[in-house]
C-alpha cells in the first residue's frame, strides 16, 4: 500500500431496498490517521453506508477495497476479520456487567484448562488489559468493576469506543458518538477520537452535529438522497457550504448568490 493511499475505499457502491435507492453509485474513502465526518440529512444513506461497510447489509453493486485489495463484506464477521470495528449509536453495552466484562464481551480471556465450556475466565488478565487500554486512551473511569449502567453517558461512550479497539482494528466507524452527550462529555469523546487518529486508525464519524464534525474531522463527506453530494477538506470549507450540500440548496445558492447580494 503506497503511503497516503486509502485504507478503505468504496467505489460506485449501490444499495436498493425495494423501490428505494438507498445508495446510488457512492464513492467513499478513508485513510489511516484520518478522521472523516460522514454527514447528511435523515434518510440520506449514512446508516446504509455504514451498515454496508460493517457487513450488516450487503451491497448490490460496486466495489469495496481494503488496503488496496478488493474484498467482499457479506456479514459482520467479515468486517471484523478485515479490521473494521463499528460503535453503534445505542452503544450495545450490557448495563448489568462491569467495565471489564463489557470490554471483553464475546471474546473473554480464558485461563488454561480443558474444554472451552469448563475453563475459567481469566478475570485478572482481562482487568489488567482493560486498565492498560483505558490508560493508553486516557479514559477515566472511577472503577473498572463498576457496572456500566452506573456510568455517565460520556463514560459509556468511551467504554464502547475502547471496546471496539480490543480487536486491533484499522478502521473504526462511530455512529453518532456525541448524540445525547453534555458539553464536557462531548469534549471527552472528541478527545478520544483524536487519540484514535494518533494511533493511525482510519476513523469514520457519522454525526448530525456539524460543530462537532468541524472540530474533529479532517475531511467531510456529504450524502444526499443516497448520492455523494460533496467531499471536502474540513479546513477549506465553511459550515454554510456543508449545510448547502446536505440540503441540496448549495448549487442553487451559488447561482443565486449575486442576486441575493444585490438585494
Amino acid at each position: 500500500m503506497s503511503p497516503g493511499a486509502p485504507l478503505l475505499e468504496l467505489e460506485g457502491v449501490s444499495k436498493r431496498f425495494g423501490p428505494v435507492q438507498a445508495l446510488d453509485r457512492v464513492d467513499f474513502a478513508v485513510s489511516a490517521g484520518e478522521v472523516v465526518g460522514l454527514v447528511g440529512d435523515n434518510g440520506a444513506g449514512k446508516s446504509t453506508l455504514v451498515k454496508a461497510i460493517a457487513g450488516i447489509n450487503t451491497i448490490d453493486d460496486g466495489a469495496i477495497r481494503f488496503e488496496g485489495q478488493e474484498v467482499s463484506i457479506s456479514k459482520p464477521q467479515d468486517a471484523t476479520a478485515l479490521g473494521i470495528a463499528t460503535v453503534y449509536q445505542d452503544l450495545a453495552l450490557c448495563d448489568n456487567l462491569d467495565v471489564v466484562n463489557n470490554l471483553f464481551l464475546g471474546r473473554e480471556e480464558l485461563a488454561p484448562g480443558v474444554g472451552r465450556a469448563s475453563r475459567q475466565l481469566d478475570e485478572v488478565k482481562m482487568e489488567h488489559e482493560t486498565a492498560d487500554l483505558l490508560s493508553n486512551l486516557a479514559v477515566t473511569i472511577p472503577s473498572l468493576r463498576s457496572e456500566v449502567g452506573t456510568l455517565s453517558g460520556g463514560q459509556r461512550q468511551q467504554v464502547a469506543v475502547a471496546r471496539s479497539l480490543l480487536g486491533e482494528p484499522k478502521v473504526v466507524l462511530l455512529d453518532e458518538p456525541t448524540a445525547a452527550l453534555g458539553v464536557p462529555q462531548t469534549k471527552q469523546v472528541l478527545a478520544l477520537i483524536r487519540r484514535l487518529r494518533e494511533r493511525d486508525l482510519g476513523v469514520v464519524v457519522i454525526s448530525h452535529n456539524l460543530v462537532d464534525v468541524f472540530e474533529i474531522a479532517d475531511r467531510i463527506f456529504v450524502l444526499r438522497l443516497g448520492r455523494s453530494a460533496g467531499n471536502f477538506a474540513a479546513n477549506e470549507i465553511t459550515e454554510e457550504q456543508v449545510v448547502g450540500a446536505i440540503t441540496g440548496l448549495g448549487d442553487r445558492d451559488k447561482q443565486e448568490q449575486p442576486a441575493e447580494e444585490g438585494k
Partner: protein
Amino acid sequence: MSATEATADEPKGKKSLTPSQTLRRLVQGDLSSVRVVLGLVVIAIIFQVQEPRFLSAQNLTNLMLQITTIGLISVGIVYVLLLGEIDLSVGAVSGLSAAVMAVLSVNHGWNAYLAIAAAVAVGATIGFAQGSLFSRFVIPSFVVTLAGLLAWEGALLQVLGKTGSLNITDPKITGLANTFYSDTVGWIFAAVIIGAYGAVLALGYRKRVVAGLADGGPLSLIVRFVFLSALVIGAVAILNSDRGVPLAVMILLGFVVGMEYVAKRTGFGRHVFAVGGNAEAARRAGIRVNRVRVAVFMISGSMAAIGGVMAASRLFAVNQNSGGNELLLLAIAGPVIAGTSLFGGRGSVWTALLGALVIGSISNGMDLLSLSSAVKLMVTGGVLLLAVLVDAIARQQRQTSGRV
C-alpha cells in the same frame, strides 16, 4: 488499577480504600444475601418462640431434606431468571422425568443409574424443545412453558398408566434421599469444604496481588472465610447430632457450587448474564444468543428432572401428584426472594439454596404449628409478593439513582 491511577485528580480514583469503603464493598457484594440471612434469623426466632422443636437437630435435618427438591429445581430456574425469562414447566417436567425413571426401573428392571440418566435426558430434551421453540420462533417463554406445563402433566398421567402410582424399590434410587453419613465422614466433608474454600480465596487473592490489582487488604476475604467455616462447622455439628449429614444435602450443595461456578466463572455463564442484561448487545458482541437460550432451558429441564428424582427417592414413589401442587411456584419464588432479579441479568445460584431455605423454613414451621393449608398458602403468597416488591424497588432505585 493503572487506569484509575492516571486520574489521580478524581477523588473516586484513589487506589487505597478507606475502611468504610471496604466495609461497603464487603456488604454490597452480598447485600441481598445478607438481607436473606437476616430474614432467616427472624423466621427462626418467630417459629422457635412458638414451637421449641423448630430449631431441634431433628427438625433442621428434616428441613434440609425437605428443601432438596425445591433447591435443585431452583438452580435451573436461576439460570432462566438470569436470562430474564421464566420456565413454568419445571414442576411438570420433574414429575414426568421421575415417572420415566420409575417406569424404567420398576417395570423394565433398568439399572438405577441408567434410569436416572434417562430421566435427566428427558428433562434436557424437553428443555431443548422448549428453548428452541422460544428462541427460534420468538414466542414468549411464558407461553411455551405454560403449554409445556399442561402437556407434561398429561404425559405424566400417561406414563404412570391406570394405577397412577409406582412404588420405587431399587435401593440405589431410594438411597439418594435416605442416606446419612457417619459423624467422621461428616467432619471430613466439613474439612474438605473449608480447606477448598480457603485455598480458592487465597489463590485468587495471590493472583490479584501478583498482577497488582489487589484493592484493600485480605481482611474481607478473612471475614468471609471465618464466616463460612463457622457455618459449615455449625451445620455439620447439628446434622451429626441427629442422623448425620444427608447425601441429599451434599447433592444439593454440589449442584449449587458447580452451577455457581459455571454462572460466575466461565464464558458461558458470562454470556448468560450478557443475554439477560442486553440481548442485542450480546448478539453484536458475537455471542450466539439463541444457543445460550436453548442451553439455559436445557439446564432448567435437567435440574427439574434431578429435583424430580430426589423427590421420588424421598417419597419412595412417583404418583399423579409428583411435581404438582405449589412446587413450581415455590421453586421460582425461592431465588426471587433471595435476590435473583425477575428482570434478568442479576442474581446468583446461591439464591436457589437461600430461597429454598426461606421457603422451606416457613413451610416447615407452619407445619409444626399445624396451621391450615389456607393460612400456609396465604403466608407463602405474601412472602413471594414481598420478595418481588423488594426486587422491583431495587430495580427502580438503580434506574433513578444509578446513572450518576
